[in-house]
């Protein structure tokens, strides 16, 4: 397959403006003749659906939740970056771009990351205009906080609920358009496949989750904004419903899947407490502004944290990375936690935890300032653990959180399937091998509010569309395939629940394709996954019928896709023998244990192409060319 990134020529700083001028436009009166399907209603999906409909396109928007307001973007806590330089601390579009590229360990596409930094400033303005209640200074100006991987203060926030407020802004814009009759919303509706006609994406097949009815929808373009696939690990910070089905179906229809092994493990989550655990809760990275991370110096020190004198504590992040201290990027901070726990210095019952201690900050700032900054997070922590973080340090451990990998897209955010777009976490383009904190919200909204509204017009204006309708054989045969798969799942009637198999898959992925990876472990996983998949298809028990609300059936469909995606992740991790960002290959490290990149052999995007159920996927490479910056070794010391 040919990977044409369509990166515009010219200097980095001028590419986007030039591109906007060069691409084709759809006449305002003609926009209403085009139907666009948007799948997903998080930051990327809701902002895209609202904005495209404001422009005049006819939009159908789908989400599996009962309302678009519930999409998982809502759970983002800490903030959103923007290069406003309101703090006068030396920030600029170029600095945000450079931090993003460096944070991603130079494995993202330069032009996309630059555009993201450029658009960041517009996002804040747009959200303020919508009534997003960002934190303010007494004088009425917008407040900022610092985040990991940056030495300037550029993160905008709404207490610890920034994702919620940004999503509600986008949701309200979407509801405004729904009220006008310009967007048709399909809640409790899950996309189960993509329909291709004449080599283009022309529609989707969905299941109505209340009635179980399989339905088809035709369109001129399809936009996937369905988020990431961290739930392949079973335990992650993602919502329980977050899944990869839409992007995986698109992959099987011909969209290349890029860098699937780039998965981010977030350093500050509440540790696992038991086998029943259904998800892991993140404690915002913003806590690292004031919390100090430490473990006991001695192995197996079981004393209560407040009984361990200062001299017997190892503030290992401050020791190893004095320049960034507790505010290092996520990949490095996570690995450092794993390392001290592997040494037997972890805390808590399981020994898989480190302390995040606020005692010094409370002494310096007082309880009330800490409450102001982190009150809701402290409460959440106490509810879950029954421990009061004002009195005893929090216990935290890394957990799967975000996936930098996703569908390959060009500069226009189009996948390798004409007419199929991927936005937000569902695509791969902006964060390379590691995403910086407070950049996911930025990307979702940049893609939805400010990129796709321009770029989709270029595709539509080029025309060449044949009329399609849902009675066409392509739709009917896809509906049949789905009905067959559903009947098959319901008929197995085995002994294992979907969750038990999903949990087992999670263990395999966490152990062998998690925070650190090696060739032997990855090959072991490659051997185990197909066996588990086989067990799923012969021994799973999916109760109930296809024509009702059936949550077990919904889960079974999603897990069947995770079982395939997991294998591609492992293959990608095997192929990339370098370490970069969140992908740490034990074979490739510096003498002091840091990730060792291999730019000579791996400065490319690995875009995997589906080649059939029984064939190995084909690896296509998009070379990464850096015109504006020099590749450097990441150094946070």
């Amino acid at each position: 397959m040919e990977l044409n990134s369509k990166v515009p020529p010219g200097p980095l700083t001028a590419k986007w403006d030039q591109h906007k001028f060069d691409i084709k436009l759809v006449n305002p009166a003609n926009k209403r003749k085009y139907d666009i399907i948007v799948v997903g209603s998080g930051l990327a999906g809701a902002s895209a659906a609202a904005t495209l409909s404001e422009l005049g396109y006819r939009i159908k928007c789908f989400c599996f939740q009962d309302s678009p307001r519930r999409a998982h973007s809502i759970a983002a806590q800490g903030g959103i970056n923007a290069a406003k330089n309101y703090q006068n601390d030396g920030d600029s579009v170029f600095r945000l771009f450079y931090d993003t590229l460096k944070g991603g360990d130079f494995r993202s596409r330069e032009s996309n990351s630059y555009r993201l930094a450029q658009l960041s400033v517009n996002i804040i303005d747009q959200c303020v205009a919508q009534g997003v209640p960002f934190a303010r200074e007494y004088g009425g100006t917008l407040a900022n906080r610092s985040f990991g991987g940056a030495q300037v203060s550029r993160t905008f926030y709404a207490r610890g609920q920034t994702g919620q407020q940004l999503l509600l802004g986008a949701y309200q814009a979407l509801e405004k358009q729904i009220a006008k009759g310009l967007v048709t919303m399909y809640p409790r509706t899950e996309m189960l496949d993509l329909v291709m006609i004449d080599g283009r994406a022309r529609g989707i097949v969905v299941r109505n989750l209340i009635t179980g009815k399989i339905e088809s929808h035709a369109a001129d373009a399809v936009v996937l904004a369905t988020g990431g696939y961290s739930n392949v690990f079973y335990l992650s910070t993602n919502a329980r419903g977050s899944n990869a089905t839409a992007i995986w179906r698109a992959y099987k229809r011909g969209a290349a899947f890029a860098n699937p092994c780039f998965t981010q493990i977030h350093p500050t989550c509440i540790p696992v407490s038991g086998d029943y655990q259904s998800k892991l809760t993140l404690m915002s990275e913003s806590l690292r502004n004031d919390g100090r991370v430490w473990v006991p110096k001695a192995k197996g020190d079981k004393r209560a944290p407040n009984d361990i004198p200062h001299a017997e504590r190892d503030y290992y992040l401050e020791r190893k990375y004095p320049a960034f201290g507790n505010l290092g990027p996520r990949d490095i901070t996570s690995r450092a936690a794993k390392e001290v726990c592997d040494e037997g210095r972890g805390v808590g019952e399981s020994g898989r935890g480190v302390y995040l201690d606020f005692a010094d900050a409370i002494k310096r700032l007082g309880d009330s300032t800490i409450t102001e900054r982190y009150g809701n997070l402290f409460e959440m922590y106490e509810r879950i653990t029954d421990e009061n973080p004002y009195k005893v340090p929090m216990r935290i451990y890394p957990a799967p959180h975000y996936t930098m990998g996703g569908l390959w897209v060009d500069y226009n955010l189009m996948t390798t399937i004409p007419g199929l777009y991927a936005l937000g976490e569902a695509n791969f383009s902006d964060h390379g091998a590691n995403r910086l904190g407070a950049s996911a919200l930025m990307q979702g909204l940049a893609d939805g509010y400010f990129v796709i509204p321009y770029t989709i017009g270029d595709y539509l204006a080029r025309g060449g569309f044949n009329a399609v309708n849902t009675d066409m054989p392509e739709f009917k045969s896809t509906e049949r395939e789905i009905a067959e798969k559903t009947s098959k799942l319901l008929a197995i009637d085995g002994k294992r629940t979907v969750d038990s198999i999903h949990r087992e898959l999670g263990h395999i992925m966490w152990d062998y394709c998690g925070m650190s990876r090696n060739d032997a472990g990855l090959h072991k996983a490659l051997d185990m996954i197909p066996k588990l998949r086989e067990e799923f298809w012969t021994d799973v028990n999916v109760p109930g019928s296809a024509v009702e609300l059936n949550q077990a059936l919904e889960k079974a469909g999603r897990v069947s896709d995770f079982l395939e995606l997991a294998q591609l992740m492992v293959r990608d991790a095997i192929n990339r023998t370098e370490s970069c960002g969140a992908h740490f290959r034990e074979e490739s490290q510096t003498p002091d244990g840091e990730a060792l990149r291999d730019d000579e052999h791996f400065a490319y995007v690995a875009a995997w192409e589906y080649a059939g159920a029984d064939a190995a996927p084909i690896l296509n490479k998009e070379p990464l060319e850096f015109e504006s910056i020099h590749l450097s070794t990441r150094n946070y010391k």
Partner: protein
Amino acid sequence: MMNLKLHVWRQPSAKDTGRLETYEARDVSPDMSFLEMLDVVNEDLIVTGKRPIAFDHDCREGICGSCGMMINGVAHGPQRGTATCQLHMRTFKDGDEIVIEPWRAQAFPIIKDLVVDRSAFDRIIQRGGYISVNTGGAPDGNDILVGKDRADHAMDAAACIGCGACVAACPNASSSLFTGAKITHLGKLPQGQPERDRRVVAMVEQMDEEGFGNCSWFGECQEACPKEISIDVIKQMNHDYVAAAARGSD
């Protein structure tokens, strides 16, 4: 570890009649969340050939607003300021009996078991729970200053997660807390002023159309609210409504 007896509302679909069924929840750890306890019960039901209990849930960290059930007659259960997913079993003790029912309100029809249809909330928002600004052309974020107190008040109201506990807890099944929260959030901000009158009139009208009851100041809503939103927002809504009527907004 605890053993509990659950009485759970089971209703196969909107058309069927529902009833309480009894289940044993064994070996429940105090560190489990309430939904994790239900997960374990469901796993048992599936392997013994029975239908699992349907309930809405997603983020499981108290912010998406998907989950919600009446737990011993109390919306989201006994712990204040806590959504069902954040309620932990340490709140209960060995041998407890727990009655679990769906939200009870005419405007929230039951879909199945504990799952209800809350789309009426979306329709209330559609009547004006937004600021009419299209994407593009927004002034710089610092062009319009917003005092910290004002921004904080707006945020207090904006914290609503749309779970519906306020409706379920209200003897009149009123959605005034939900609607008042959005009206207060947008009404506190300078950006929300141009549409303030028409917003309140239309949203209140929609509450009535959906079949929600009127507010008669029981205050149960603020007790049940997982985000502890104060009924001051209802005061604000009533104030704005009267002011809008006085100004003759339609």
